[in-house]
């Protein structure tokens, strides 16, 4: 079952009806990169399938190639999800992020930069006891003007761009288990002229005792000033939750979320 909250908006559309798959290994986007990405970034698994129980929401057309909002919901996938790998078929950086849900639920909202039109995919690795890993996939085609990875971050247009750098905003909703967090960060890919790579590499959620709840490996395609949406089980959604992040040049960021704050 998808865990979307779209029904909380007046007459909000529910989850899209699952499309009954024909050949579960057929690529609905007929993309040349998909076999390579499975090989290079997923370990060339044999047991994989486009899974109608897995949901990926992305706009059919990117209004802003620097901010393409995406939501992956693998809560309907049978079996425990060990990680979710997000790949973008024709991005200069194939892997957008890797999400290790740990004690959180396998649902993640995020935004990516788009360099050119193509498919974005989420691949969930299910590890169930001693059985060999099994992969559930979902994807969406995003039409985009492109340039999202090679344009300078918008913040560099401002002389005071470092002001507010690293600021974290967030909130925890105990009733629904939602956790949202944003960080002010340019997420420079290194592809814009004269601007070296400067991007987040990792973000973790921890409980009050410092034990890890969930972890994100972050790569260049994540949007500038990233905003992330997580889903926690009730016992963790009561908080507090510590958010820690770091970037590729050694900055560390920390925030603390209390329920109802």
């Amino acid at each position, binding site marked *: 079952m998808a865990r*979307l*909250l*779209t029904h*909380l*908006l*007046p*007459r*909000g*559309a529910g989850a*899209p009806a699952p499309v009954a798959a024909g050949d579960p290994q057929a690529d609905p986007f007929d993309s040349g990169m998909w076999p390579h990405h499975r090989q290079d970034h997923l370990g060339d698994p044999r047991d994989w399938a486009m899974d109608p129980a897995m949901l990926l*929401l*992305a*706009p059919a*057309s990117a*209004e*802003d190639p620097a*901010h393409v*909002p*995406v*939501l992956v919901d693998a809560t309907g996938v049978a079996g425990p999800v060990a990680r979710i790998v997000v790949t973008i078929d024709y991005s200069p950086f194939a892997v957008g992020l890797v999400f290790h849900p740990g004690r959180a639920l396998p649902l993640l*909202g995020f*935004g990516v930069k788009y360099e050119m039109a193509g498919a974005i995919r989420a691949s969930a690795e299910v590890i169930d006891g001693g059985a060999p890993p099994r992969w559930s996939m979902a994807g969406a085609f995003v039409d985009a*003007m492109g340039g999202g990875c090679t344009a300078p971050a918008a913040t560099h247009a401002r002389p005071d761009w470092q002001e507010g*750098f*690293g*600021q*974290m*905003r*967030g*909130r925890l*909703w105990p009733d*629904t288990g*939602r*956790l*949202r*967090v*944003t960080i002010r960060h340019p997420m420079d890919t290194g592809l814009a002229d004269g601007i070296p790579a400067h991007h987040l590499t990792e973000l973790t959620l921890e409980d009050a005792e410092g034990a890890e709840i969930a972890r994100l490996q972050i790569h260049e395609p994540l949007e500038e*000033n990233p*905003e992330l*949406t997580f889903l926690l089980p009730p016992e963790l959604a009561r908080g507090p939750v510590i*958010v820690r992040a770091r970037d590729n040049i050694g*900055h*560390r*960021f*920390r*925030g*603390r*979320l209390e329920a109802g*704050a």
Partner: protein
Amino acid sequence: MTGLRPTPRPTRRGVLAAGAAALALRPAVALSPADPASPVEVADGVWMIEGAAQSFARTNGGAICNIVLLATPEGAVVVDTGSNARQGAALRQLADQKFGGVAAVVNTHHHPDHWLGNQAFADRPILALPQSRALQAENGQGYSDNLYRILGSWMNGTAFMPATADAAPGPLVIGGRALRLIAMSGHSQADLLLLDQATGTLVAGDMLFLDRAPSFPDAAIADWLAGLDRIAAIGAGGVVPGHGPFHRSSAALAQTRAYLRAFAGRMARASGLGLAPAEAIHAGPMPEFASLGANPEEYRRAVVQRWRDFESDALPVIGGT
């Protein structure tokens, strides 16, 4: 009719016949969605070419905004010029043939459906608010690139040309026609409205939409709502919205105001309840506006464009470096 040459109200067929006579030795006027073949006189000497109530698409050639020609003895005052060179050229041809030329051009704001036809008027003064001119120069290339991608060959030959002169708020007489220019902001950073004194017609630019979903790429919703209050105080006798039909009521004012409030309400609710922007997009537009022209796509664009305005209200600061 004020200053327009004594021709009957041009029906589509009439324009075709006139065009065929005038252009006996030239190619026939191309008939396409982007060619202004049927201007309608909505008030004395105020002619309107109504844009399609849609988003940019190859099926409409980018002819989506309303264009107004104000007739004067010195030629037309052309308000907005369309999305591309082809639309601008057709508009120029119409003005030359039926309005005795072009006295001046006005761009209501810097969004590309309103001024990428400017190059057909390069020999005439083209007025816009100073900030609109700067934004035209800054964004013209990006707009062109994007429209080439969406509209394809409709854009052939289009070279963006920002307005060439500053418009100043206040009275302006062109060819004996008394206008009042009104500067606002909210739909964009600088929105210019024209009030035709003789007829009381307000040419509102994109401060007003009717039966077509408002667009939000540069919107500041509070400023926009304040502008609507100022428009209400004008008490115009007739209104040409930026998109949608001419009317002699407060319909566009009421609908635009209701849409802005409903959109802001939906975004505040979504961000306040912890929805991800992808969910707010997927949920679709406010039910009461779901069937407006250009929806749901305009709503989806607006969520991406405006989401962060609401997010900072919904999410308190929790930390930093």
